[in-house]
């Protein structure tokens, strides 16, 4: 391991701009870098000559699906079209920056975003998940914010598949290892098992950060003469597998043989980088800032220059290296973690370097903002890149991929889980046994085995986290101002009907935030789908985006940013080998005083349980259909967004006025699961009666317990507030029904569904908590 700056490899022919102009016939391995013939032709047109190896490296990585969103761009524009001025009211920075920024009042702003690290987490679960968390944290830092919490949404193959036993513990300890070590509380997430994720686990990580309004920073390089500083970890050969073709082309004799396929994270370096950045921001030493993630320096330089007001000159030989054998192409492409790039005025640069020195963070002045409009990259004085930065960063190819509703969709939707086709439990004994099996099933069982590996307390501002519906953190210690976040997705519903499924995921996250007592304000999303080259997948994608955009408009919450992950698919069986279409939606809400937040379980005896919303026979895509019959078909539950809005409004008012002591959203597993979780939260039982509910909604006890109708929440109302609570629901026209009372916390306490069955909480707890340890070790 050598740590010096590289000497120009002797004897190797450097592919300079000059040489490229002089050797137009020289063929470059554009195909091996993933470019299409017409894309390569466009690059030649833009440049008026063949690209150099370094230019080709930049274009190929920046024009990849991952960086250019070339298949998804046309659809993502839908979000903008559905964002009204009213929705923009709280939006300080919208889609397009590293992360959106939302005004939460009192001079405070928050920024949040969810991103995927799916494929790397399959190859190397620990490091893949860890660097996924690290990457999203840097996006938040790049906005000028202090990161305050993380969340993770995880999807794995079948729970008893041998490879799941490899992937789950690795991913979980990677998420925890990075987040715990960097000192950010993990305040929630999801875990879901389904065979479609076998070989394609989904690892989506969210970070939220807070700042004062005046601290918002943007990623652009403005001001001729301002300096470009790279700081953080040294650059190694991480994640440049592909570009080695170029290295071997131009550096035949000196090119290194091995380039790591995976990146290793160093959370300690990132923690120091966070503190260092915050010191830099508060001292006013940063004009513009950008994190280095996918596509490394290629991305950071071209995006900063493209968003700026001039050109940029970079001396690539000044990049501090971990591996001195790297070629210019490789340095441009390296995805080494824990690096940032800042634009600094010449007057501030000494002070800037003093701060980085205080934190033992390496920094190098790579170049400057120039007049003109070219991005120039030099290697020991010779120009290896000379491009218009916009063509690299923002004007990549855009595809209108063909899409079509798959022929199989009709049959799928026709395959409804009717009582005639899937036998349903009817007697008390059958219902009791079903409830115990359901609550122990992989997607409904306790997540404690996972979440106990995450620090939820660090920073001292967490007031709700697992297993509550939303994570809630305090942002301002003086006033108690804080935010609530929930991350939800439902691939099964989205498979049955992509537009409705995406909206159901949105509605669940929105409802979760309101259930905790917060006013929903903004949305981030991570769209995980199969191959865009499959018209069926593309149809799912287009439908989901359309549904999501319309849903956001109806609820009045704008999409502020997100991430698209395509090609989550193994094999070539088309749609059948793709993951369930999985939009994961994060909703952020505000509480003016987080001490008013509502927890998800009851702890006082004698409170009255009310069910808000109505229940229909909706079991298509439900957990019951899957757990008991391995069935996925029919239509997902219907969604009424006006009702969701009303429900949220009532819940937020209830929290503000202290009308409810607990509230729990009904989602996977229906009312049965909500009763189990609400009871187990603090160990207080409940006595429940279903007759009135069945009568009012025209359903039977099985449907009452296991249907997954949307728009429902279970709340515990203190007796002295019952009148006010009833009046408020009645006045607002919200369906509400008294279905039970809470019991005390005791050894003997039970969940008693009157006239049908009763289960001691001890037995419920045993069933609920045993599953994950049994599969992944105590």
């Amino acid at each position, binding site marked *: 391991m050598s740590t010096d700056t590289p000497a120009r490899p002797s004897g190797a022919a450097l592919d300079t701009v000059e040489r490229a102009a002089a050797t137009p016939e020289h063929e470059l391995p554009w195909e091996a870098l993933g470019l299409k013939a017409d894309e390569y032709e466009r690059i030649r047109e833009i440049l008026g000559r063949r690209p150099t190896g370094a230019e080709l490296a930049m274009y190929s990585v920046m024009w990849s699906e991952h960086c250019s969103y070339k298949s998804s761009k046309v659809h993502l524009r839908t979000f903008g079209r559905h964002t009204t001025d009213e929705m923009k009211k709280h939006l300080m920075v919208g889609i397009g920056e590293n992360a959106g920024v939302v005004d939460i009042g009192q001079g405070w702003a928050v920024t949040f975003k969810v991103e995927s690290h799916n494929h790397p987490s399959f190859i190397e679960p620990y490091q893949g998940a860890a660097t996924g968390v690290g990457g999203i944290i840097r996006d938040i830092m790049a906005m000028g914010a202090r990161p305050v919490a993380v969340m993770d949404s995880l999807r794995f193959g079948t729970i008893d598949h041998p490879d799941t036993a490899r992937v789950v513990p690795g991913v979980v*300890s990677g998420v925890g290892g990075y987040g715990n070590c960097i*000192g950010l509380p993990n305040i929630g997430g999801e875990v879901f098992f389904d065979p479609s994720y076998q070989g394609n686990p989904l690892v989506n990580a969210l970070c939220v950060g807070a700042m004062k309004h005046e601290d918002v920073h943007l990623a652009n390089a403005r001001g001729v003469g301002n300096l470009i500083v790279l700081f953080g970890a040294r650059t190694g050969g991480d994640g440049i597998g592909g570009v080695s073709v170029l290295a071997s082309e131009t550096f035949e004799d000196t090119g290194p043989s091995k380039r790591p396929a995976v990146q290793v994270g160093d*959370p*300690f370096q990132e*923690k120091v980088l966070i503190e260092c950045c915050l010191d830099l921001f508060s001292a006013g030493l940063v004009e513009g800032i950008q994190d280095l993630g996918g596509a490394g320096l290629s991305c950071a330089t071209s995006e900063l220059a493209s968003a700026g007001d001039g050109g940029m000159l970079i001396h690539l030989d000044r990049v501090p290296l971990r591996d001195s054998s790297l070629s210019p192409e490789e340095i441009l492409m390296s995805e080494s973690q824990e690096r940032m790039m800042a634009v600094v005025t010449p007057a501030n640069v000494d002070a800037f370097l003093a701060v980085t020195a205080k934190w*033992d963070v390496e920094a190098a002045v790579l170049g400057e903002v120039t007049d003109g409009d070219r991005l120039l990259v030099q290697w020991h004085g010779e120009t290896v890149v000379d491009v218009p930065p916009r063509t690299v960063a923002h004007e990549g190819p855009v595809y209108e991929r063909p899409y079509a509703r798959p022929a199989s969709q009709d049959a799928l939707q026709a395959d409804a889980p009717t009582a005639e086709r899937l036998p349903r439990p009817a007697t008390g004994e059958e219902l009791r046994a079903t409830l115990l099996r359901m609550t122990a099933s992989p997607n409904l069982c306790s997540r404690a085995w996972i*979440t106990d*590996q995450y620090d939820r307390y660090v920073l*001292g501002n*967490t007031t709700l986290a697992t297993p509550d519906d939303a994570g809630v953190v305090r942002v301002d210690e003086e006033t108690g101002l804080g935010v609530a976040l929930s991350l939800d997705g439902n691939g099964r519903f989205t498979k049955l009907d992509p537009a409705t499924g995406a909206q159901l995921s949105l509605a669940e996250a929105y409802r979760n935030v309101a259930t905790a007592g917060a006013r929903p304000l903004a949305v981030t999303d991570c769209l995980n789908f199969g191959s865009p080259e499959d018209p069926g997948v593309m149809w799912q994608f287009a439908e989901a985006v359309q549904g999501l955009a319309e849903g956001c408009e109806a609820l009045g919450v704008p999409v502020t940013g997100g991430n698209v992950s395509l090609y989550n698919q193994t094999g070539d069986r088309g749609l059948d080998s793709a993951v369930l279409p999985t939009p994961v939606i994060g909703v952020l809400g505000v509480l003016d005083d987080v001490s008013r937040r509502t927890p998800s379980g009851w702890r006082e005896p004698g409170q009255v349980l009310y069910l808000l919303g109505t229940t229909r026979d909706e079991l298509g895509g439900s957990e019951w259909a899957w757990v008991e019959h391995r069935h996925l078909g029919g239509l997902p539950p219907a969604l009424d967004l006006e009702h969701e809005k009303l429900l949220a409004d009532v819940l937020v008012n209830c929290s503000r006025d202290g009308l409810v002591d607990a509230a729990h959203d009904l989602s996977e597993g229906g009312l049965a699961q909500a009763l189990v979780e609400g009871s187990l939260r603090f160990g207080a039982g409940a006595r429940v009666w279903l007759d009135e509910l069945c009568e009012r909604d025209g359903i039977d006890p099985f449907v009452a317990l296991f249907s997954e109708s949307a728009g429902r929440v279970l709340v515990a109302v203190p007796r002295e507030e019952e009148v006010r609570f009833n009046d408020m629901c009645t006045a607002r026209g919200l369906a509400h029904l008294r279905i039970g009372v809470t019991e005390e916390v005791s050894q003997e306490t039970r969940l008693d569904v009157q006239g049908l069955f009763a289960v001691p909480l001890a037995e419920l707890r045993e069933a609920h908590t045993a599953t994950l340890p049994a599969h992944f070790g105590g």
Partner: protein
Amino acid sequence: MRIGVVTFPGSLDDGDARRAVRLAGGEPVALWHADADLHGVDAVVLPGGFSYGDYLRCGAIARFSPVMSEVIAGAQRGLPVLGICNGFQVLCESHLLPGALVRNDHQKFVCKDQRLRVESASTLWTSAFEAGQEIVVPLKNGEGGFVADEDTLDRLEGEGRVVFRYLGGNPNGSLRDIAGIANERGNVVGLMPHPEHAVEVGYGPGTDGLELFTSVIASALVSAVGA
């Protein structure tokens, strides 16, 4: 009372320790690892976190930081020093406390609300408790298994220097369920659980942790009156 809280690169719960000091009525003073100066504080807290990444051994590198030479000298003179989690590891690495902390027996990081028994109320950091009192504070660590040889363990027990013990199941394989210990004089205490995360209603399990900080403030008052 001015209580210093050391920040090493990689300290995570330093802000929380300062908040706990403040809520207990003390004046928190931020101390920097590279600064060989305690700035005249009356007590020191070594907070939780992963100093220098803790890749080698927890606390191994922090022990050699400039500020630690002052902390060690102060502790030997009787300065109250509290090590929480990573701070406990630093105290053991510095030989201010005996024993060492190793990887949890189940090999996983664990974060949970932990029941403890206060075994000794005769240290500077536990005088506000009753001996035998049960408290709940968060526990969060990956390397919290306390180990020492049998003789050392017997001596700790015999001299009443086991300060906290885990109740309701051993969360990490610590020998004899030991969660925290003191030096002979009772001015240096180290524990794995995080009392600074149980100081505010609504943010953690109750406020049992506050007493560690009020203890040291009260004992300073007592000694000031006595002097």
